[in-house]
């Protein structure tokens, strides 16, 4: 079987996921006070998500189109990616609220904000790519 568009969509989703995880880690490392309280778990979830996306991309070549491994992996990776950006955003809500009002001079806070937004964008786009891929055939006949 030849690799179809889904393979490439999943590959991009994996790369975006990796970038999102990296940004989550970066945002957490900038200050002790705004570090993710469960940073290890968040990173682990992100890494697991990336592995599952890779698995989802790899499985059709071995198990055929619309195989259950790909289907489950995609759903699980969407959930894991969501957990990563969700935690990043949720734990920074107070920080972000301050930046847009009484604490606009917090330069470190703005860096964390941009890293958080970057993480969320990567993860959300990755999720959308995974969803788009789910509607498509995973592989095409040679």
């Amino acid at each position, binding site marked *: 079987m030849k690799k179809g568009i889904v393979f490439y969509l999943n590959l991009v989703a994996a790369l975006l996921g990796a970038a999102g995880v990296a940004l989550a880690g970066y945002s957490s490392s900038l200050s002790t*006070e705004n570090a993710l309280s469960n940073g290890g778990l968040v990173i682990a979830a992100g890494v697991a998500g990336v592995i599952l996306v890779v698995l989802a991309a790899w499985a059709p070549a071995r198990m055929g189109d619309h195989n259950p491994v790909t289907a489950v992996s995609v759903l699980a990776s969407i959930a894991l990616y969501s957990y990563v950006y969700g935690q990043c955003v949720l734990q920074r809500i107070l920080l972000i609220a301050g930046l847009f009002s009484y604490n*606009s001079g917090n330069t470190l806070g703005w860096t964390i904000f941009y890293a958080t937004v970057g993480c969320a964008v990567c993860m959300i786009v990755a*999720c959308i790519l995974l969803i788009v891929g789910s509607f498509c055939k995973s592989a095409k006949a040679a």
Partner: protein
Amino acid sequence: MKLQTKKALARGISGIACFSLCLSMILGIALEANAATIDTYLGTTSEVLASDNDEENPLYDKFTPPEELLNEDGTGNSNALISAAIDLGRREAAEGSVLLKNNGALPLESGSNVTLLGIRSHVNLLGSSFGVKAQGPYISLEQALSQNRTDFANTIAWSVGSRGAAPSATITEWKGDEFDFEGAGFNLNQTMIDIYEKLGETYVHYENEPAAEVYDPGEPSVDEIAAVNGSYKDSFVEYGDAAIVVIARPSAESVDYLPGGVAEGVEFEHGEPLSLTKNELDAIELAKEASDKVIVLISSSASVEIGTLKDDPDVDAILWIGAPGCYGMLGVADILCGRVSPSGGLFDIFTTYNMSAPAMQNMGKMYYSNTDEVITRTGGVMGFTPGAYTIEAEGLYVGYRYYETRYYDSVAGRGNASSPVGAYASTESWDYDKEVTYGFGYGLSYTDFTFEFQGEPTFDISVDSETGAPNAYATFDVKVTNVGDVAGKTSVQIYGQAPYTIGGLEKSAIQLLNFEKSDVLEPGQSQVVSVKVDLQYIASYDETYDNGDGTTGTYVMDPGSYYFSVGNGAHDALNNIMVAQGMDTSKMVGVGNAAQVYVKEITEDFISKTLFSVSKTGYPISNQLPYADWNYYQPGEVTYLSRTDWAGTYPKSYTDMTLTNEELINNLNGKTYTLQTEDDTSDILWGQDNGIKFYEMFGVPYDDPKWDQLLDQLTLEEAMYIFTFGGPSIPGADSIGTVETYMTENAGNGIAVNLNASKDPAAPWAIPASDPNGNWHPEVFGNAPLGASTFNPDLMYELGEFTGIESLFTGINILWGPGLNTHRHAYNGRNGEYYSEDPVLSGVAAMEFAIGALDYGLVAAPKHFAFNDQESERGGVSPYMTEQRAREVELRAYQIAFEATKYDTEDYDAGMRGLMTSFSKIGSIECTTSEGLMTEILANEWGFIGYAVTDIYDDTDLWSAVLNSGTTCFDTRGQAGFYSTTTLSSSNLFQNLVEGRGLDEHFIDGDANLQLKLKEAVHKNIYAWTESHLMNRYNATTHIESQLTWWRAVYYGMAGVSGIVMLAGVGVYIMASAHKKEEE
């Protein structure tokens, strides 16, 4: 459908549903964690206190709005409330606006044809973009001058934050009632209004704007005016009865003006942001072309450099109007048309160059030269920059105290006062006349008044035989006579001068001691106005005084001649004293009248030197803030300004100070408390069953033993929650029958909650969502300096009362306001939130406001205690100063407000029941952790009992030290859902403590001191609640009921549908897979 297609579809839909489910869960968590804030903005109610309301268990019987603001059935009347706000806002501006110059041009006759100039005449500055914002619909200057009715359709106040934040409307639209008002009756030049409307597309302005570190007032040039309409001058012929130019300088939280901080390409007269620009001066020149009557309105919260206008004979009148809030322009109109004679006095001295103030030599952003090497403490949750400081080397000489004292010494010819050192407007010698434009407390009227002491003042001096607490007052009866042609009122300001000896204690040559305001007096009418002066405020703090008990430092009353004077401001009062002292009148600036002076020889027999060494609570006073002074750590490095040698001690700029002292460095790193882990705490009772509930505590005195029983019922964990989460949402405690409640909000000019978003929706007077005026926002009054400039204690009280009434309608029982810091200099971006440079004016204004508010069950918590002297690096900046300066200037304002002795009775110790601490330090110690400040001075000396909250997320890493100091809770805005969503150990705010661990419920299990401090802190918090209208809502049946708000329904539905669709998709996928297998 093919099976493959079916499977693809099922898989895709499952993916979408999974994503949607996750999104709705994230949204749900975010919304629930911030439910209280969301409710405030959306006008929803997530939880309500539910109670039976019957004869046995009555509700809403302790504090109620006045009857005139209610309908016959007891429900709230929003129209009446807004009408009352319009009336009060109008009167605040009419009494607070200060007429600085008038050669007879004012008042203008009704029917005058007037040209308005300056872009701020069209887009008025009404409030601060952050802090005391003017919210919602307003009445513009144009409307106030020319109309009589508003539907508010086109006058919704907008706001823009600092550092490029996006502007936004303070409310989306107004669909409520129309309101009638009596305008000035002028006819306005529509040509110029149209031009400024067009220019507003380029020079974008808003009703609420901030200061800026690099400032441009955005005033269009004359050429740009002509470019819009080349024949605009033709309109001057018809509208030439008067030309009114409006000039504005905004103020707001979080940013200062900075020395030399002006936008490139904009020509400022003095190269400073508070001087006038060429375009502004050109607008005034244009006004001269438009009319023979040129009137300038100054809209600011600080001294604007208007010396040029004072000296310009063609500028006929200058009226300072502050930032007058949503309805203040009506008061301005009242003055312009002569309906009201102005009676305000300046809140700050207006100088020719603000840079000439000694305080200006040390403001802005200064950092230790070795911060990176020795400061290990981070900037905390707020991301503040460590290592910022300011040396307040001006010592006692803040604002008018500097200019007037130096003036006095220059006339007396001593202390090198006439040296050109520190002179900006004068050259060869320091010249008051050139350095100062208008003095503190000064203000003109349309009529004239004479002031005459009626006999000797009454001295009331005694000492409590048990405690040694002093009681020392002088009451001056002043006969005020209107000797002019029109009716008017005037302030009666009493100033004092204590005897000074060269080389002795630093003393201001003149200081305000108290004030009152007359009634409206008809021409020829007199009134005797009594002004009661607390003599404590003419005593001086001597840091070196040996108290004989091992302590040093206390207040002293040096024996000698004490001068008391009534005058139109500090300079006038000082001139009176100087004449009485026989000083050389030829050297004086202005004239004096010795008849307006009373001299009292104070001897040890009359008032002992150490009478004020004991506070009104009977607590001995001694040095408590040694760490405020840089020289305490590194002696001799700072020279404070002294009358002994004005030239030699005029402050230099202390940049790049280097930290070498180990104690200083340790303090800056927050190492001020050591958590104990092995104490025996068995005697400290928690979790007892004494059968007392919170609702029973209304009216129970703070020292009643019943409180101990109630507090013993709390579990240690509950008490920790109440200390840790101080609002706006405050945790409940099952053991005493309280539930989580949204209690607090900003600000000093009204309550920051929409009328229809009440936190107490069950109140009979709560305004329902369906009310057409429901989105009216109660933050409508003028900035603090405008209120201060009224010099009218009754009006200040009324402002507090009305805010208290607003709080009943909005269900907020604790107000984070008013602002009570000192105007150390004109460049503090937040001066609009603080009253004045004078502690007596500030303290009285705050006291009256707070006591008035408490009449309606609102606990006013003034901020920021203390020393928030600048916004630059406000987070943790270290202001270094002498303790004398700290006590006689900044702290005195708080002392007056907190002691509130004016309202004490034999049975009741009146006082403010709340405060908010400062982001800043006092010297090297955070204000939040300073035992000297929070316990020794605040609680022990002044007897403060109440809610003492930190500023937002401030010093959360110093949890133990904050508790130890006497601070009673943390501002934890956004935190809610206590004991479930938010716990002691889950809140991000408290996970990086200096102890190297996070907070949890066992954190102080082994620290007896902190457990006792915790009990005291919680006692003070709960006591403050019981003084508030929160008690309206509590009885034996009170419980909480959750509500399904629309936003909660949305995310519930979204999650539910997503879950079902996802499961269905998975099901279809499995079935299709199974079917395929069967086919195979």
